[in-house]
């Protein structure tokens, strides 16, 4: 497959933006500026980007608790996300969602999700909408290796196959279900999905090109009425389950070695297909990302908190017939 420079720069920029966004969030979290839990996506960037580059605003994704990368790759506004992580009034969810519920219907982003395995039935519903309207759109659920064991995922695989929904099960196998090593061998998750009858492949989740090409096929299949597909992208979780988890349950050497060998950005830039990328242009992209984050963080941290009356807003469109 040939890649245009434009595609390569876009892939690099989005992966790097996710990386730097999260490193910045991590720093702010450690300074006590962000409430709640945040879950780092580092070293899985190639999966979100390789997958979402095939999707438009009217294609849908359902994300996970480790969702910042998916949100950015699907086009959520960076400042609006920063405001939400700081739980501010102007946040993408008006400060009521926080890190684990970032959503943007206008971008087809149906929400990060704090329930492990919560997203796939919702993504199946979005795929049902696409099937009913016959509009050629597709829906994708991101699913961790932990979530792959949930009943909701099994139910969604079955429903998607039975109804031949235009859906992609995008597994991210980072080997850890919270603090517990997932005992399944790589590829087992895809095998399970395949057992429902759909095409299922396993790829290196730190290889942008491998993800991009596998998802490309799956998305095309969905758009053309060929039903659901599953992709298991094997990755490595760089940081702990949530920020603050020191991963004492992991072997130090294994951790360090997987951190190096699974870095998608290093791998991407070292790939022959990227040999024509201009280093000054890469530096410009990096600088622009820092400018974007600096401005966004400054605005987010100084922005107004929600006013108390917001507590009562947006539970319903209209509960007692009052106008919305």
């Amino acid at each position, binding site marked *: 497959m040939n890649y245009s420079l434009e595609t390569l720069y876009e892939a690099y920029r989005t992966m790097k933006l996710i990386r730097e966004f999260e490193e910045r969030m991590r720093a702010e979290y450690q300074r006590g500026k962000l409430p709640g839990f945040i879950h780092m996506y580092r070293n899985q960037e190639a999966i979100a980007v390789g997958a979402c580059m095939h999707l438009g605003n009217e294609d849908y994704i359902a994300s996970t608790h480790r969702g910042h990368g998916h949100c950015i790759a699907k086009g959520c506004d960076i400042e609006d996300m920063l405001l939400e992580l700081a739980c501010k009034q102007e946040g993408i969810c008006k400060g009521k969602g926080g890190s684990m519920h970032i959503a943007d219907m206008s971008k087809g982003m*149906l929400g990060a999700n704090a329930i492990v395995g919560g997203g796939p039935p*919702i993504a199946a519903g979005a795929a049902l909408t696409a099937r009913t309207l016959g509009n050629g759109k597709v829906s994708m659920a991101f699913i961790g290796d932990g979530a792959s064991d949930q*009943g*909701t995922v099994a139910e969604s695989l079955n429903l998607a196959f039975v109804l031949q929904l235009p859906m992609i099960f995008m597994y991210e196998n980072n080997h850890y279900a919270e603090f517990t090593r997932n005992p399944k061998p790589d590829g087992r998750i895809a095998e399970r999905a395949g057992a429902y009858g759909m095409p299922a492949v396993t790829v290196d989740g730190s290889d942008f090109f491998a993800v991009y090409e596998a998802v490309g096929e799956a998305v095309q299949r969905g758009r053309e009425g060929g039903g659901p597909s599953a992709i298991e992208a094997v990755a490595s979780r760089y940081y702990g389950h949530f920020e603050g988890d020191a991963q004492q349950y992991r072997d130090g050497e294994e951790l360090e070695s997987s951190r190096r060998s699974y870095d998608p950005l290093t791998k991407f830039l070292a790939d022959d297909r990227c040999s024509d990328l201009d280093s000054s242009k890469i530096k410009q992209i990096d600088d622009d990302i820092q400018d974007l984050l600096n401005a966004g963080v400054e605005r987010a941290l100084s922005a107004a908190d929600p006013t108390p009356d917001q507590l009562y807003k947006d539970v319903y469109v209209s*509960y*007692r017939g009052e106008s919305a």
Partner: protein
Amino acid sequence: MSKISIREAINQTLREEMTRDERVVVMGEDVANRESGGVYGITAGLADEFGELRVIDTPITESAIIGAAGGAALTGLRPVAELMFIDFLGVCLDQLMNQIAKFRYMFGGRATTPVTIRTMIGAGAGTGPQHSAILYPLLVAIPGIKVVAPSNAYDAKGLLAQAIRDDDPVVFCEHKAIYTEECEVPDESYTIPFGQARTVCEGTDVTVVAFSRMVLLAGQAANALAAEGISVEVIDPRTLSPLDDEAILASIRKTGRVVVVDESNPYCSMASEVSSIVVEKGFDYLDAPIRKVTAPHTPVPASPVLEKEYVPSVAEIESAIREVAAY
């Protein structure tokens, strides 16, 4: 006007709403089945009329049914999903409680989830502990969803049309023991706003607030007690969330006495909720203690003998009314 049953009213409304708005789809277990149209035939004929892209048979996987209905609602359809028996709520509660109910709030008011979940409730058919519960108090306790429980065909039609056209998630509770109850229903389509109780019969001595099938029993009790000179006013809230507090309080202001009748278990129930509202907002109107008539704190037994013991009876309701009337 035609005299039709609740079952027919629901079928007719589904047909009308699917004709009116092509975003309306019906999904669930056996709903497209041409021979039966579901366990009680509620969706009979819909698949023939609207096709299998809009009347969708699903596997027996309630989380996927309810979750997918929510996801479809979030992305532009108006699904009517069937949760065959409300007892199956346990299988799929996360998708309703943590996902559908919270989408709008946790996404900052930028998501709309116009989904209707039809479900069968209630004892009286010998269907045993896992097919006979009421359970709607669990749902009334969850912010972000509305809960409806009609007691007659007229209300069923208007409330279901409202549920399907409503932009919020609605759970529509159909008592399986009253599906065949008939009344006069307009042939044309209409909606009934949520949060507006119906006064079933007017009276001056005792107010009875009753829900779903219990409205019928309360009406029978009211008729019987009229002969004894006790004038009973029966209020059917029709929607449990939102609940028409005003109508209940207005009636009690007139009567000073209240009996609440609900087939759900007694703790944290509609009966306890109404009692709480009356004590908090209508204490000064009361001339007698509130009486609750509910099912006991037990599962629903399969034995017809025990089930009869479980479900509140007309005699129990009459006795409670006499008691507060005489206080």
